[in-house]
């Protein structure tokens, strides 16, 4: 009897305990769900279709954009399924132009756009003016993060505000969201300073006893290249290295190794000592650049295919350590499995030995098709992806599974770190960073949000060591540039732009052509003929516009920017 009573009491206790537990759980869930039974982050049950015009970057999308764990979690939280279409077309601008002409634009598109001087912008601007994109201003205003573009004057750069998003000729409408902007008030210690080069093979620098500040002048560089040649250094295949090789992503004309002569770096326009706007070819710096390269070519110090080598071969050769010095790359640890390259800065034509950086960097842009249904939902979804909660998902995956948080620092789990080492090619399929970043990567302050400068720095210091090493190598000075890059003003005079832009775009080919000319006279003639063609196409009209703008407000134009353009 006693045993029976005890059993009844136990059963009763279990029932009471379970019912309390269920009630409590229900109460907690009630806090997070709306009246319709959706979580508070819910937007709509919908499929957003996007298209990216980003060339081979489409390879960074996950194989399954719908059923990966992060996309599933986001679907659960917002109701949104997001899929991006990427054709892998080798020229993003060409693809964008064709897609706009044929009207093949899904709900949302993404294009490259660092600043309004990029060649994509005239095409995007024309499309916006002609009603291809939806005015998203009313929706942006209601968002938590993206509304900062409108309300926070310190957030976006002047170029982003006045030329891209809040243009006067848009009459209050907003058609684009400029991406990858740093949060306003971000401290210097909270941002990554990318190094673009030139780079020298670390073991060669050590063997030749070259310090990070030793290569200052063109003569210094020439002597280093000469020593590399004489040093009989070998690559991974036992072949002699070329002292100077092309940039990592395929050879073309780049000014990083002719730094002493880089008048108007990145724009080719600058003001001379008397305050007069000039084009690079109107100064003797253009010839000096060409002459330096010609000397290297004559003496076998430069790879003969420096200006033309395709990307595949450039990467293969760089990985094999076939070049002593390369002019431009980004510090990416995976790129340098065989040989490490270390950065150095030469003195620029102004006499500074600094790394130029955009004060408010930006990269990529998205726009919503005018035909997209309920654009507000897309804006809300982008805002969710740009929130800390959204960013955590596409940067770090699922909490407890892929990462944990300790003292405000996000740490990947050992299981995930192991997975990244054993299945590096599948990382994007589980944590689709690129997929989420396309709409969500803005208002960035990684250090503040996640307790580290870059994803994974706290979790795997060894693996990320090179990034910090590159960033700080030689204790470089960073100098910010601001204002609108000079070429952006060309769109203000469309008739001149029509004629002048194609000729300005020939610059890199013309300079390379002059390098390969049979004689100095022929090379000089190539440059002078080019200048004449520029003048015939309206160079002076454009210079006048720049001069007027500069005289009115010198800070509104950026002539000297980083040389990656």
């Amino acid at each position, binding site marked *: 009897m006693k045993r029976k009573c005890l059993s009844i009491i136990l059963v009763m206790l279990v029932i009471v305990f379970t019912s309390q537990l269920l009630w409590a759980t229900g109460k907690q869930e009630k806090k997070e769900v709306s009246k319709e039974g959706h979580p508070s982050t819910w937007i709509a049950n919908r499929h957003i279709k996007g298209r990216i015009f980003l060339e081979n970057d489409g390879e960074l999308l996950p194989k399954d954009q719908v059923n990966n764990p992060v996309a599933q979690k986001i679907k659960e939280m917002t109701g949104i399924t997001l899929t991006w279409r990427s054709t892998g077309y080798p*020229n993003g*601008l*060409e693809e964008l*132009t*064709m897609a*706009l*002409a044929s*009207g093949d634009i899904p709900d949302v598109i993404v294009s490259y756009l660092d600043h309004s001087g990029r*060649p994509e912008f*005239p*095409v995007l601007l*024309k*499309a916006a003016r*002609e*009603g*291809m994109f939806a005015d998203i201003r009313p929706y942006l205003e209601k968002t938590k993060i993206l509304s900062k573009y409108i309300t926070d004057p310190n957030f976006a750069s002047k170029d982003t505000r006045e030329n891209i998003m809040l243009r006067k000729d848009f009459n209050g409408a907003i058609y684009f969201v400029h991406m990858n902007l740093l949060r306003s008030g971000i401290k210097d210690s909270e941002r990554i300073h990318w190094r673009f080069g030139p780079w020298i093979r670390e073991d060669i620098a050590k063997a030749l006893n070259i310090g990070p500040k030793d290569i200052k002048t063109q003569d210094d560089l020439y002597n280093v290249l000469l020593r590399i040649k004489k040093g009989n250094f070998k690559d991974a295949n036992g072949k002699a290295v070329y002292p100077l090789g092309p940039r990592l992503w395929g050879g073309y004309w780049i000014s990083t190794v002719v730094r002493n002569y880089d008048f108007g770096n990145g724009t080719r326009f600058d003001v001379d000592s008397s305050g007069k706007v000039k084009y690079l070819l109107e100064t003797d710096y253009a010839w000096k650049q060409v002459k330096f390269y010609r000397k290297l070519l004559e003496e076998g110090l430069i790879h*003969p*295919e420096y*200006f*033309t080598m*395709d990307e595949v071969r450039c990467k293969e050769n760089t990985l094999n350590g076939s070049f002593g010095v390369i002019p431009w790359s980004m510090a990416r640890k995976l790129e340098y499995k065989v040989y490490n390259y270390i950065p150095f800065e030469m003195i620029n034509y102004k006499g500074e030995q600094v790394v130029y950086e955009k004060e408010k960097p930006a990269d990529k842009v998205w726009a919503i098709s*005018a035909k997209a249904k309920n654009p507000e939902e897309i804006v809300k979804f982008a805002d969710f992806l740009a929130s800390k909660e959204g960013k955590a998902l596409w940067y770090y995956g699922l909490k407890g599974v892929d990462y944990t948080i300790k003292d405000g620092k996000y740490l990947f789990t050992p299981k995930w770190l192991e997975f990244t080492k054993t299945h590096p090619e599948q990382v994007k399929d589980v944590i689709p960073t690129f997929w989420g970043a396309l709409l969500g990567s803005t208002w960035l302050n990684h250090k503040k949000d996640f307790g580290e400068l870059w994803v994974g720095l706290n979790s795997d210091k060894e693996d990320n060591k090179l990034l910090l090493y590159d960033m700080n190598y030689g204790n470089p000075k960073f100098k910010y540039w601001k204002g609108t890059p000079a070429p952006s003003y060309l769109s203000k005079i469309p008739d001149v732009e*029509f*004629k002048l*832009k*194609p*000729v300005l775009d020939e610059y*890199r*080919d*013309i*300079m*390379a*052509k002059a*390098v*390969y000319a049979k004689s100095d006279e022929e090379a000089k003639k190539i440059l002078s003929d080019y200048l004449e*063609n520029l003048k*015939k*196409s309206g160079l002076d009209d454009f210079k006048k516009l720049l001069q007027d703008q500069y005289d009115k407000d010198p800070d509104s134009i950026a002539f000297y920017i980083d040389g990656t353009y």
Partner: protein
Amino acid sequence: MNRRLKKSIRIFYRFRILYLMLLPCIVWFIIFNYVPMVGLIVAFKEFKYNMGILRSPWVGLYYFKEFFNYYNTPHLILNTFFVGFLKIVLFFPLPVIFALMLNEVGIRLFKKFAQTISYLPYFLSWVVVSAFVFRVLAPNDGLLNQIIGKLGGNSEIFYMMEKKYFYQIMFLSYLWKNLGWSSIIYLAAISGINPELYEAAEVDGANNFWKVIHVTIPGIRSTIGIIFILSLGDILKTGFEQNFLFRTPGNMDAADILDTYVIRTGLMRGQFGYATAIGMLQGIVGLIFIIIANKLARMYTEVSLW
């Protein structure tokens, strides 16, 4: 209904199956060749994305004027004519000669083998061919330079960077890619020649060479004539891919032609009206060439298109 119409309907009904077989071809031409002609009006309009072709505003001859005012236009036209000359006039007899040679090959297995090998390059894209050409002709470590180096010559020549080698490289790679495929139509025409003509020539004492001269060539003369006249229509439209991909800063003066210019301005900068205007000029020049060639052919031979 008059008698003539009745007769036409009767003939049409009698050959109805043949007409039915022709139908897909006619539909194809209408869809892909005639309907797009409407798009030519873009050459006179400022194309706007939201208005499409028909509703965009007219700009008259603006794009044509701009094209003729462009400093590089004469150079582009001359280059295009020269490339057209190489690809059409100079290339033209070679597939005919190749087909005649193949026809004379007695060993059936070798003939099939040679045909297959010669057709294959046609199926490679110009992207692949250009990568191959760049590798073979690379300075120092390219195959050609290595051979020259082994033979004691200068192995440092960067062929793709020198204007003087561009046309040779362009023509030879074009020949390698298209020779076999272009010869098919002549082989088909040769197979249609009545064998009795060869027997008659043999009875008259003709050897293989004279049979080719007096039987084969006259037998395919009309095919040769018509293909030549038609190909002249493309004298200013030689295709952009090869020149676009082979272009380097060193050879750009030779490589830039109207087709590459159209791609660079039209597609890469969104100047559709401008690109269409140039394309239209190319088409008009091609049409003029066809008309002149046809007239000359009709005056001096019995071969002509109409």
